């Protein structure tokens, strides 16, 4: 492959175009030169059309003026994966073992791989994910037998994907020949569309129905895609009849996904449906300590507590905050003390504080229970108002750094002991009443994401 001609052409184009145009339309092209033909490969049809319409004449002109100009120049959409980038190569090399599963399906597309780092060993267990973890472990050791399908649901960044990969990795370790396919629901849709376009739907069906385990992430993205749901319905039935394991994740309870066919919703509930809740403080601390160790850093417990206390939304953002602190420490050469962490996360936390105010909590809670905000601040004490008020107070204590007297003041000038009582009451009800627990997690999720 000699791209010298293209390089010279690029040098001329760079002078003709604005830096923005050059970076947007020329840099994504790959050039392949064969037998007097220059093939420009665009990543998608959008880029191809732009280059064809706006640049082909200019490119032809430039090439014509070069001594060893190719006779023909074409621009097409690249369908083959390029050689792996250097960043991916090291990962590839370390996981040539059975941990990574890659295979080419009939259409030459790459089937998604399991991430070797997502195992049960690296999954931090806590009250919020205990049940889901136990179910996943059971499925990994008895695939197709115990819970089929396994349906894991919960908010974003709580570890659903980690758990699914952990099952896949363990199954693979126990049976290296098992065909385990992990993919995101969007990939299923895209593959199906491609198969329809290439008249290869029979191969598509054969492939997905032949696997030993199908792990499919974020099925809420099937919503409104009727043809994909139809196809998935049949795949699902075939796998289930064959005793092949299915695991699905979703951001909500199956019945709550709008735009999903009823027959799918009901089938999703045939096996076991488990929730992952947002992790509580202790789990968040444990997660931070574990992630820090994986990054090769030791984190003082007080620093972990500080970060965990302030970032409550989800594990992914918790990890982002830790990453910021660790990188900042490495860059400046300063040790990670509590003050250092506060400084490094200043911007991030300021933003959080702006989002979670007592006022915002009152508004959200009032909307959730469909009562006016003024009722929360009023002296009324009947249950329909008192419970939401206690909930709002408990959330204010959990999510803001305001003191008990400050919170009491913001709720129509109440005493700090009233706030304390509310916090205790809600904590106790969360243990005994499922409804209260559900309200609490829903509100916590709404407020912190």
């Amino acid at each position, binding site marked *: 492959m000699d791209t010298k001609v293209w390089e010279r052409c690029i040098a001329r184009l*760079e002078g003709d175009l*604005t*830096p*923005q145009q050059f*970076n*947007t339309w020329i*840099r*994504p*092209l*790959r050039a392949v030169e064969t037998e007097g033909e220059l093939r420009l490969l665009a*990543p*998608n*049809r*959008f*880029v191809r059309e*732009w280059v064809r319409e706006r640049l082909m004449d200019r490119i032809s002109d430039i090439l014509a003026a070069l001594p060893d100009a190719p006779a023909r120049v074409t621009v097409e*959409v*690249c369908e083959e*994966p*390029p050689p*792996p*980038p*250097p*960043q*991916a190569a090291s*990962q*590839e090399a370390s996981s040539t073992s059975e941990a990574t599963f890659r295979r080419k399906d009939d259409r030459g597309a790459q089937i*998604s*791989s399991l991430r070797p780092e997502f195992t049960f060993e690296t999954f931090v267990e806590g009250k919020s994910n205990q049940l889901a973890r136990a179910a996943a472990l059971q499925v990994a050791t008895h695939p197709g037998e115990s819970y089929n399908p396994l349906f894991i649901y919960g*908010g*974003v*960044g709580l570890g659903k994907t980690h758990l699914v990969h952990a099952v896949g990795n363990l199954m693979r370790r126990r049976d290296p020949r098992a065909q385990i396919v992990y993919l*995101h629901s*969007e*990939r299923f849709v895209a593959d199906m569309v491609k198969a329809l376009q290439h008249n290869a739907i029979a191969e598509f069906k054969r492939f997905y129905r032949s696997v030993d385990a199908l792990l499919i992430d*974020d099925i809420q*993205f099937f919503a409104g895609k009727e043809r994909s749901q139809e196809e998935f319905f049949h795949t699902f039935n075939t796998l289930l009849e064959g005793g092949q394991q299915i695991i699905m994740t979703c*951001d909500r309870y199956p019945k709550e996904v709008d735009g999903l066919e009823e027959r799918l919703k009901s089938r999703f509930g045939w096996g076991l449906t488990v929730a992952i809740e947002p992790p509580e403080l202790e789990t968040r601390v444990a997660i931070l300590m574990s992630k820090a160790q994986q990054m090769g850093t030791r984190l003082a417990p007080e620093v972990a507590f500080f970060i965990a206390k302030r970032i409550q*939304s*989800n594990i*992914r*953002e918790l*990890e*982002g905050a830790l*990453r*910021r602190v660790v*990188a*900042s420490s490495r*860059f*400046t050469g300063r040790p990670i003390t509590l003050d250092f962490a506060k400084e490094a996360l200043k*911007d*991030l936390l300021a*933003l*959080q504080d*702006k*989002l979670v105010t007592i006022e915002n909590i009152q508004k959200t809670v009032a909307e959730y229970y469909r009562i006016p905000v003024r009722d929360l601040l009023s002296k009324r004490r009947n249950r329909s108002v008192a419970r939401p008020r206690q909930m709002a107070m408990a959330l204010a204590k959990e999510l803001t750094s305001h003191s008990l007297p400050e919170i009491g003041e913001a709720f129509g000038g109440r005493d700090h002991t009233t706030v304390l009582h509310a916090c205790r009451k809600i904590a106790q009800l969360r243990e005994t009443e499922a409804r209260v627990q559900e309200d609490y997690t829903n509100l916590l999720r709404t407020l912190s*994401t």
Partner: protein
Amino acid sequence: MRAGGPRQLSLPLGPAEERGFASYVPGPNAEAVALLRALARGEATAPVIHLWGPPGVGKTHLLHALCAETTRDAGLPCAYLPLDQHELSPRALEGLEQLGLVCLDALEAVAGEPLWEEALFHLCNRLREAGVPLVSAARAAPAGLGLALPDLRSRLAWGQVLHLRPLGDGDLERLLREAARRRGLQLGEEAACFLLRRCPREPARLLALLEQLERLALAEGRRLTVPFLVRVWQGALEAAETLQGQEGGA
């Protein structure tokens, strides 16, 4: 949300080196520059980077520099997508996982648009799976962008989120004098201070102004001294007054 809002000022078209990392005066943003340079060399540890800050801190400059160095050093194709450009559509995100790097600029322009957000979310997943780095830039951090899809927000917040800050006086002076030196001009300390006291503090606009001054100085065969600048300023003020007078009389 894509309509309206101030348009991004593009950097003046100077020699190629003016768009690289070398011409970016890091000032308070040294960590971001170091991280991006490591990424261009293929040594980065963070596969997702989000840069945020007000207009004029050089987000676009850094993304362009990153693209240029990635192509030059690693020989990899890359994509740069300014999302405030109306000619782009979510279809432009297809297949980008085949490239070596993807840069998204002005992310705030599509925040709140369901089609864009979902397409970006899927892009994040495909890039992560393929091991391709993603660098985004916006006016705000992921939590402050007003994204409707929490999945997208948490994916952007998962990587390195870096706040870019405007340059201080000393750094701006250095920027001006270095840009002048690259153009073969002499710009003394006093002349640089004169400009900084009277001009917008965004590097892109300062450099555009320098380019205009260069043309004037060249035409008159003068150097960029304080007396010369004073004269240019007075001329510009008088011209503005005359214009105002004419408009008032009309």
